[in-house]
């Protein structure tokens, strides 16, 4: 639901992209510049920088912890289950990010999944 609030705010305030950044992840000061450069380099709709699951450094985290998402994605897809006019919309909040990624790809968009480019991302545990 919070992501939907962010989405609506972004659309109504004419932002070009959403930097989705979880509030327990620390990134280097040039992290957003790097994401923007990556997005521009291939006109990507989405750049997801994978990190690691809190407390489990060997386990890759593929959610929107540190991701840059183009406005175009947010114009087409939302986060509310109530918008489930697509028959594939999950009936649970849990896999929302995966669902959005799939929709973007299915709709002709593209996404970049990277790991280890932004050095380093710390996922705080305590």
């Amino acid at each position, binding site marked *: *639901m*919070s*992501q939907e*609030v*962010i*989405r609506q*705010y*972004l659309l109504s*305030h*004419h*932002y*070009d*992209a*959403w*930097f*989705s*950044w*979880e*509030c*327990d*992840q*620390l*990134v280097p*000061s*040039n*992290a*957003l*510049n790097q994401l*923007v*450069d990556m*997005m*521009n*380099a291939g006109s990507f709709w989405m750049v997801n920088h994978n990190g690691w699951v809190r407390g489990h450094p060997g386990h890759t985290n593929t959610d929107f912890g540190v991701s*840059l998402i*183009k406005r175009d994605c947010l114009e087409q897809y939302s986060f509310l289950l109530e918008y489930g006019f697509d028959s594939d919309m999950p009936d649970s909040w849990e896999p929302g990010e995966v669902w959005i990624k799939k929709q973007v790809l299915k709709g002709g968009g593209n996404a970049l999944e990277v790991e280890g480019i932004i050095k380093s991302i710390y996922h*705080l545990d*305590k």
Partner: protein
Amino acid sequence: MKVLIGIPIHQTKNSAIKKWLKNVSKLEYPADFLMVDSSSGLNYVEKVKEYCSKNRIKNYQIEHIDVHQENGMDEMIGRSREIIRQYILSHNYDAWFSWECDQLIPANALDKLVKMMKTQDYTIIHQNFGVEKIPIEFVASFACTLIKKECLEKFGFLLEYPNMPNTWHRGENWFKNQVVGNGGNYIEVYGTIGPTTSERPKVLIGSSIHQIKDYAIERWLENVLKLQYPADLLMVDNSPGLTFIKKVTAYCQKYGLKNYQLAHIEIAPELC
């Protein structure tokens, strides 16, 4: 009108330059093209040549100058502009199209500037796109500007020339003032050429917050403050009640965070 598109380039603008060269290849007005690179070493020149080849740009020249990188961008631009100026004077161009390498413009932009220049015999025409992120704010740049040869015969860009300011900063302001002060004229236009796209997207940092992350939020806000890229911040709190949002407001004040918005949504406990 014989026009030279003369552009200072630097490796720090690489991601913009790739797109910008595509834009150059689509420009309708027939003009020659000179880039002056002031990057460290010669590697970037080779890279730009590859980009030109990919975009089938053949009618171009690229020069390189060595400038001590720590002297800053203003000196690099000033010295590059002087090379462009000398090239224009020695090759009998009628005008210089100054165009920043991170600005994308419509294919007919230069045609429009040339037409405008001819209508009233203007000396300089500057299409003002405004400051990045603040389009209504005036900016005295050469980002998309057509400049007649006559100006360049009278005034240069090197500080070594007489009557120059003692700083490389705001060279465009000085140049324009000289032109106008010596009987030239200058027109500033808004909205005639458009739309333009700057390479830097306007970004919103949007983050869900919750009191269970209280252990991390102070360090995270400090991290937000250090981010180099200019972006607004929206935090959406979904903790029960308003206690946490007050706490976060206090943290923001403590760290001097200004450019932020806080929102709260109340979610029924059975849904959490």
